[in-house]
């Protein structure tokens, strides 16, 4: 990966293009080499006349040193080792800029300080760079800073096209370097696997004076933040990769956002929670098992209800359980809440002895995330083994999808939904379940009812028929 900085003064300029050498602290007629932590940097001038000078910084990343070095992660997945990081411009190039052009970045020049303080007509070219998002992002990032920017595609071989990015603007050299320093990793937007927290903070410090007013500042800031991975989620990632399937980061966040946005005008999820809570209240369910609790929205609602004595939330994702514990502040608040509420990892397709003895179980928008082939296991574990007295279950009503603007015909509301049922399908399933396991069931719609298609969400309330079971 490389960045080339060109200075081409107007014909009447009072300085020579070769002054670029002074500004950068590199002699235009020499090859500069320096080893840094991640590899070798080289600087040479591709041209060095008084009309035009261009300095090229090339970073030759040592992929082996990088993963063997002191900053090495605990052995990760194979993608930590073989990837485009050593070749396409990313935060490593920012590190190289900071090391090799440290004086220039600070705005000082031993021999040409006045020139360093002036705005000059610079160009910079970064090659190759893999832009996360549309190529227009280059404009979005650099145009507000006064650059003309062009992204030329380098041929599309993989899922992320590579570009040769050129910007031109009349700026101080220190500002040019700082803009590059911060914005190269933002364009790239990949995890800085080998860059420590400290380096990330440096990225943000280099934004002083211009980042605060940048229209895309929130994008820049969020992209510059690095993801944290826990031991368990790292382990999961390895498994996902070993299975030859796309890595599942257990973070369905954005997709949930999409579903919420779709349903937003009717605040459907709030209505759903209202309905579930009122059913639980009607039945005086003091101990509640919330299966598929997600981040704990229903639990939070229930903790506000004085008649609720005990809640166990269960989710199949380690990451989700952690998030729920955090959101519900279970590890922080006084003992009272943690005595009433706990959240545990569990699975709807295994039986679980911890599920017995609850007054009620809730499954709010959960079953549609299971494979239809896994439903029999859920039925056995919940209705057959745990035999909870009251089961409140909601699921989308597929018929209503026709009324959602922006949802293609036949599409499901959420990418992870394995199915969505019509009212009839839901009724048939629920009735066969209740007949088999000795429950009585009735149905309610959730949300505004609309003629032929019913309500957006549907709810079934199963009650264990204890008396008839014992005599029969």
């Amino acid at each position, binding site marked *: 990966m490389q960045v080339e900085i060109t200075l081409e003064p107007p014909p009447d300029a009072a300085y020579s293009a070769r002054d670029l050498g002074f500004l950068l602290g590199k002699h235009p007629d020499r090859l500069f080499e320096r080893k840094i932590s991640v590899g070798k940097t080289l600087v040479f001038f591709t041209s060095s006349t008084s009309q035009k000078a261009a300095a090229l910084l090339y970073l030759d990343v040592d992929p082996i040193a990088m993963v063997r070095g002191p900053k090495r992660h605990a052995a990760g997945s194979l993608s930590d080792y073989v990837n485009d990081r050593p070749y396409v411009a990313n935060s490593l190039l920012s590190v190289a800029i900071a090391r090799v052009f440290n004086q220039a970045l600070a705005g000082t020049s031993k021999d040409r300080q006045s020139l360093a303080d002036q705005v000059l007509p610079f160009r910079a070219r970064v090659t190759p760079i893999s832009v996360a998002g549309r190529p227009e992002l280059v404009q979005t990032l650099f145009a507000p800073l006064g650059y003309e920017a062009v992204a030329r595609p380098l041929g599309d071989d993989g899922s992320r096209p590579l570009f040769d990015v050129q910007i031109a603007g009349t700026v101080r050299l220190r500002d040019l370097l700082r803009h590059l320093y911060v914005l190269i990793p933002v364009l790239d937007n990949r995890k800085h696997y080998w860059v420590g927290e400290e380096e990330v903070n440096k990225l943000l410090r280099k934004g002083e004076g211009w980042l605060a007013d940048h229209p895309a500042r929130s994008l820049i800031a969020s992209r510059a933040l690095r993801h944290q991975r826990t031991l368990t989620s790292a382990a999961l990632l390895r*498994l996902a990769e070993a299975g030859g399937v796309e890595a599942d980061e257990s973070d369905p966040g954005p997709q949930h956002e999409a579903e919420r946005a779709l349903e937003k005008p009717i605040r459907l999820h709030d209505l759903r929670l209202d309905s579930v809570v009122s059913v639980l209240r009607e039945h005086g369910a003091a101990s509640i098992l919330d299966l598929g609790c997600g981040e704990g929205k229903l639990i939070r609602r229930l903790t506000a209800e004085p008649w609720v004595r005990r809640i166990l939330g269960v989710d199949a994702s380690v990451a989700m359980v952690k998030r729920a514990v955090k959101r519900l502040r279970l590890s922080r608040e006084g003992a009272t809440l943690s005595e009433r509420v706990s959240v545990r990892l569990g699975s709807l397709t295994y039986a679980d002895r911890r599920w017995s003895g609850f007054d009620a179980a809730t499954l709010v928008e959960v079953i549609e995330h299971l494979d239809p082939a896994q439903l029999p296991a859920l039925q056995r574990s919940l209705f057959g083994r745990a035999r909870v007295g009251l089961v409140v279950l909601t699921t989308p009503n597929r018929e209503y999808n026709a009324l959602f603007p922006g949802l293609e015909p036949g599409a499901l509301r959420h990418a992870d939904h394995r199915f969505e049922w019509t009212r009839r399908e839901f009724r048939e399933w629920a009735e066969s379940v209740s007949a088999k396991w000795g429950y009585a069931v009735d149905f309610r719609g959730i949300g505004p009812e609309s003629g032929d298609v019913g309500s957006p969400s549907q709810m079934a309330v199963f009650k264990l028929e204890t008396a008839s079971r014992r005599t029969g």
Partner: protein
Amino acid sequence: MKITIPDFSLVVLVGPTGAGKSTFGEKHFLETEIVSSDRCRGLVSDDVTDQSATDDAFALLHYTAGLRLKRRKLTVIDSTAVRREDRSNVVKLARVHHALPIALVFDIDPSTCNERNRARGRRLGAHVARNQSWQLRKGLRGLRREGFGSVYVMKSPEDAEAAELAREPLWTDRRRDHGPFDIIGDVHGCFDELAALLERLGYRIDPFEVGSERLIRARHPEGRKAVFVGDLTDRGPRNVDSLRLVAGICEDGNGLCVMGNHDFKLSRWLRGNKVQVTNGLDLTAAELERTSKAFRRRILAFLGTMRSHYWLAGGRLVIAHAGLKEEMHGRASRAMREFSLFGETTGETDEQGLPVRLEWARDYRGRAEVIFGHTPVAKAEWLNRTLCIDTGCVIGGELTAYRWPEREVVAVPAARQYAVPAKPPVSRGGRSAQQEHDELLYFDDYTGKRRIGTRFGRTITIPAENSLAALETLSRFGIDPRWLIYLPPTMSPPAGAPEGPFLEHPEQAFKYFKTLGICDLVAEEKHMGSRALLVVAKDAATARSRFGAEDGKSGVVYTRTGRSFFRSDSDEAEVVARVGAAMDSSGLWDDLATGWVLLDAEVMPWSAKAGQLLGSQYRPTVAGARSSAEALIEAIGRTVGAVDLDPLRESAERQLANATQMGIALEGYCWDAETIDDYRIAPFHLLAAEEQVFIDKPHTWHMDTISRIADTQPILQSTVWRRVNVDEEADRKAVVEWWLEHTGRGGEGIVVKPSEWTLRRPGTFVQPALKVRGREYLRIIYGPDYCEPRHLERLRHRTLGHKRSKAARETQLGFEGLYRFVESQPLAKVHECVHGVLALESEPVDPRL
């Protein structure tokens, strides 16, 4: 005084302060056996006399004692325990853990106590011992009623000094008795069937007279012991004769009998207690009324020798009439006695209409086999290491015996139906009790840190974090656990080649095995695709009866993390059908005497499963490396100036060439797989079939057998292989040449294994196989430029220890699970291993190895 206590009991030292309890305790018990309230008071407050710490001290005392009892350790409580309420807490604790509470009482004169306290420098008012002594004496006579099994009272320091203490095993604890045993189900007066069964088992019954009152003697010439699960009488035709025979066997020490609920009721009737003479007791009573008083006394005495249960054979075998939970084995309590007589008696039925008493067996996870009767079943069937052998002889079924350690079931049919069953014995329509139970696994069986014992001489530990990761993966993405009987281990490469242009070379693999003294090897072509396990049954009915799955499938194909290999069920069904057809036409079903097989295979093309990684990782790497090198070459090309950039240009050109090579290697493993015909499946192990795990067959057998099916089905591909004698240079050379040629044509590499599966050598575990990957292929693993000398030299020194340990552990765990499956062990036991392999797979290790 001689004090005899069971070697598992809760001993309570009762007496006022200064009575000599601690001195007695030190003399007769291990220091660790004694939990003292003074010591606990010290532990929580730094002051053994701090009375304000009493509540916390007793909380600690009960907690500590409880943990010891849970672990079946004799425990001595040294506190004054002179008040009834203090003792009742202790008795409760003993009951919870099914331990016998024993009171050793020090009824010592308070003045003696005070003298001692003074001598020990304890500053206590004289009233303290006096009050305590008074309280003690008040309750002394009621101690037995409080629930103590035995009470010994020492009236003076001399008594205490002279006391001898002996420990004995509990009556139920016969762990030293290793049999062999023949365990016999509920007789219920079916004397003829009992005699026939005993004869079938090889017992000799002495001649006897019908109508006599003499006991009937019988013995086995090889000294086997008959163990009866109880319910000897009632409802059947010859109750007295049955009693004569069983009592005769037991009296001579040729047998043992545990008490059933019918025997219990009979003994109450014989003692003259008021009982309802119904449910078949009427028949027994009528017969007994015709016998002499002396005979009835003798029978009553015999019934008195029956135990609640027996704990036999080093703790590996438990006999109880109605079964027994693990926490009650070899223990004593009223709850235990009631459980073993009547089972769980909630009176409810579960979802299948079975009595809820089966609950304990469903939850049973113990190591001991529990053999029981009580509830008639149609067939003696295992459920989680429990076996009910009451096959309803008296209602026209069979009288069943279980032979131990042979683990055989022997049964004789009833001559006729003597009584009408209250309800028909439980039957399950085709599936076994175990399979029915195995419809569901319990999540909480797999959480936390786990230890799994294997038959390969090693117990494998699974850390909690990894256990959870594996559970999440299995529950969110895994196939039905009933199909998921095995997951394959990881495979290690050999040590890095010490020199030359190669990172890996066959010579290092040869050397590894030679060092272990294994010279007869095979080298097999390693296919570059995705690992897949294929479970294929003859037909859906066979699949259902063997695997218990209800999805109507005849087989499944899954990945090495237990996910479905194909996205569509129809693709999977098609592959299963084709492999099944190949099994048919090759005649292998019959040759292997099986209705199902498990194949370990590589499925190509790689791109079919790795599409995502190709797009997000490998192709961008090639493209990035190429673009980066090209950009530099371009810049050097337009540079004017004095700087010598030739070395830089050369290096950039090499990088460009390396990236191009990597792209070629990569694309060789990619092609469109639109239909099943585009796939190539190369099985390399035939791992298991009915009752067989084929790791006892050499790899040559696997290769030959697999080529028999591969020859008949175009999507199946056989594997090129060679045999190598490590000591023959020519053999080694031929393999190296083949490896060079094969990898030069884009092959991934070879796998070198001992010809015979060898899991261990004295003192070490052997790698089941080593993979030797080709020079070009390794670019995909180590990056395009790895073979540049400056990189290669550093890569040669790689740490293999963890990878190899992981491979060995996963191999053992995988095969352990497979053996458990072919032995028809409960699914929970098979799943434990599968889950374990997956959990180990989530341990961090250099993924390039």
